[in-house]
């Protein structure tokens, strides 16, 4: 791409004036590790990569990029599943890996102040000696970083009770593309002015580069216990989940797996799952011992009334972990029974679950690709896993087309095209199904208020109108074209 500002050599020379040589990567072999994030089907070498280790250096990288109109893509651990941190060929890949220090654990205020490159789990480990932890627990928590968690508004298995990242972050310090340092939120429970902290969460690196995060810490639960209930039909399992919520319970974890996933995970981790069941429900209560006791008794009763064929209760911590081992290994377990799998991330109103699973089954038959379903049942976040074999010509494309149909279905029943994995580059087309032109235009205006030149993480998260028009040509939603006012090409 033709660049209006500096050429690569000149840009490198300017970077060297404030960054040590080791913090600048420009050779193809050095850039290779940054060619993709966890959406590994799409690779591109970045123009350059930099690894600054002070806020001042980040500020200067941004100012320089702004001046020369060079795009910038920030990245933490690169564990994102939607390509949000995938590089762009004409831009700087800004790694925040060196910002890996925990700045302060303040037990009296239950706050941790950390740099963006600190791993999610490292926060809980540092807080544990004080009897505290950081609640959001995305499945990649061993590796993913808090900066990326904020950018993606990551979830986890405990978010029905404890919320998403946005509910657990108090303050974010970020640099704008112009190099201005902004503090959003506060160390209290709210901030002055507009709630820009809410907007920063889940903004996928389009608004600023996060350089510090203050998160809320919670007391470690005294105890936790899990129920595993087997059902003869997915519908009955879905009804039971609604029954638990209707009975006034707010479980710490509430998960569901269908038979395909159940068999795959049992073969993988031998958790002792009832493999004949059409679906299992995992229901966890945590907190004070007496509270857990009462909630588990109530949950057992509800599961029984809703026709659970079997209800097991974890007798100790080891058994509780065993119950969860299968659920946590569901993706790799499915990976063992298929050459490749494609994980979808839609959210649906829970009452539509049986209908949606039925229609996914029909789509699965039509495309000739098996689909396993893992479900964060408490919050309606469905992860259909499409099994395919990339070595068979056309199968990846079929899997992607099936995925798009599933997401269209999620929107149709009143849900969303991404519950927790983000839009990135992966779900740009489904975004055109979910949002109309006026909403997209409002997103562009919001983006421009932060980054008028559109340099931060370009081509991610929000599709252009042109892209939606092009996509709309083949996808008709609800019998109507979503963007009838646009020219088709």
């Amino acid at each position, binding site marked *: 791409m033709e660049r209006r500002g500096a050429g690569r050599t000149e840009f490198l020379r300017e970077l060297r004036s404030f960054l040590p040589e080791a913090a600048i990567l420009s050779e193809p072999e050095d850039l290779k590790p940054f060619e993709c994030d966890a959406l590994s089907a799409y690779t591109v070498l970045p123009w350059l990569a930099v690894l600054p280790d002070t806020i001042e250096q980040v500020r200067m990288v941004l100012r320089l990029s702004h001046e020369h109109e060079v795009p910038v893509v920030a990245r933490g651990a690169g564990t994102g599943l939607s390509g949000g941190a995938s590089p762009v060929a004409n831009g700087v890949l800004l790694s925040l890996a060196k910002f890996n220090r925990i700045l302060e654990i303040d037990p009296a*205020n*239950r706050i941790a102040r950390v740099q963006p490159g600190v791993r999610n789990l490292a926060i809980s480990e540092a807080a544990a000696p*004080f009897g*505290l932890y950081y609640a959001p627990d995305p499945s990649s928590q061993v590796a993913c970083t808090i900066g990326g968690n904020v950018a*993606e*508004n990551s979830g986890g298995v405990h*978010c*029905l009770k404890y919320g*998403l990242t*946005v509910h657990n972050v108090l303050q974010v310090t970020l640099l*704008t593309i112009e190099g*201005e*340092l902004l*503090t959003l939120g*506060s160390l*209290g*429970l*709210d*901030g*002055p*002015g*507009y*709630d820009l902290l*809410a*907007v920063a969460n*889940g*903004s996928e690196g389009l608004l600023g580069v996060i350089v510090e995060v203050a998160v809320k810490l919670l007391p470690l*639960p*005294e105890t936790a216990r899990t129920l595993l209930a087997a059902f003869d039909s997915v519908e009955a399992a879905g009804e039971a989940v609604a*029954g638990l*919520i209707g009975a*006034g*319970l*707010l479980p710490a974890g509430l998960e569901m797996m269908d038979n395909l996933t159940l068999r795959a995970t049992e073969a993988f981790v031998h958790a002792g799952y009832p493999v004949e069941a059409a679906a299992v429900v995992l229901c966890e209560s945590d907190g*004070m*011992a*007496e*509270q857990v006791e*009462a909630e588990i008794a109530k949950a057992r009763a509800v599961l029984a009334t809703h026709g659970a064929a079997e209800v097991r209760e974890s007798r100790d911590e080891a058994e509780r972990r065993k119950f969860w081992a299968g659920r946590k290994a569901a993706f790799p377990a499915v990976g063992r029974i298929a050459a490749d799998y494609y994980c979808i991330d839609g959210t649906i109103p829970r*009452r539509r679950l049986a209908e949606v699973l039925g229609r996914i089954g029909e789509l699965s038959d039509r495309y000739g690709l098996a689909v396993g379903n893992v479900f964060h049942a*408490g*919050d309606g*976040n469905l992860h259909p896993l499409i099994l395919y074999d990339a070595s068979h010509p056309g199968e990846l494309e079929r899997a992607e087309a099936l995925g798009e149909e599933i997401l269209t279905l999620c929107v149709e029943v*009143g*849900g*969303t095209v991404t*519950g*927790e994995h983000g*839009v990135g580059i992966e779900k740009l087309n*489904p*975004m055109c199904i979910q949002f109309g032109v006026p909403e997209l235009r*409002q*997103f562009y*205006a*919001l983006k*421009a*208020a*932060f980054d008028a030149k559109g340099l931060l993480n370009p081509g991610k*998260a*929000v599709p252009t109108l042109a892209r939606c028009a092009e996509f709309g040509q083949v996808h008709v939603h609800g019998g109507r074209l979503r963007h009838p006012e646009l020219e088709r090409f």
Partner: protein
Amino acid sequence: MRSQDDSEYLAGQVSEACARGEPLRIQGGGSKRFYAGSGEGRALSTLAHTGIVHYEPTELVLTARSGTPLAEIEAVLAESGQMLGFEPPHFGPGATWGGTVACGLSGPRRPWAGSVRDAVLGCRIVNGRGEMLAFGGQVMKNVAGFDVSRLMSGALGTLGLLLEISVKVLPKPECETTLCFECSFAEGRERMIRWGRSGLPVTGMAWDGRLYLRLAGPEQAVSAAARRIGGDVQEVAGAFWSGLREQTHGFFSTADDDLWRLSVPPAARLGELPGAWLIDWGGAQRWLRGAEADPSAVFATARSAGGHARLFRTENSAAVRLDPLPPPLAALHRRLKAAFDPAEILNRGLWQEAF
């Protein structure tokens, strides 16, 4: 219960006003005007735009039009044993759903059950161009697009006229009890820090000269927690919390005084300021009442603790209520306002001192 969709009319009004560059003062029940102030221009009422559009107790989600009385929403939730987790103040019988979200004020349960914005899942708005837009949805997890819905909470209607808001609701606790202790603030602060780290089922901690602790959950958990805390406790009526929430508590009754709200880290030790204190949110929300406090001293005190302050109630219409934002943040606020309301017609002037 009335139900009427007035969206088209409201959007039409904004659209016409936008074309003429005529400011509009969005008006609900007027119960929080003392807090938000009153925008410039012609009044546009949301009161006819009413009704609960969707409520499914087993989904924990409620959607209602902005003119719906807050009391009606709470009554409907209560019938299914549910509630708004953020325990919003009404500040008068006319409180509406739209005003509750636009002001973004939460009650004593907020540190444990989340704020208004935490509960918001989606909204339909009319922006300053008169366009009807929908963001978010009726599902708990949704990361598609920028989170415009939560941005609307606390924006005082200056970024868009709220048409409908969907929120996550919570089950009402089976049992609730309030314990009360005679102690100084210094001692109360220590206890609140300890309880905050204890994992007990706390849903309220406040100090007004005495220390109050609200416990909620299953009956056996609440009584076990009360036993564990022990000491010289006396149970008081739960009405204490509604007095705190609605500011009918005696502390708030001196009409001539200014009332400051300081939002700070819960254990913060603040510098000396003249006036009387009442502590809520386990220390994270502090009320300062008095006539002598110098605004710049209050702002600086809150800022140096890592928080912020605003003048919440005053009889003095010329008083400085908001702390000016740092210049780059103020400039961003102005650009954001322009992104939603380029003609600056919605509730003009409400954030004047801030940006």
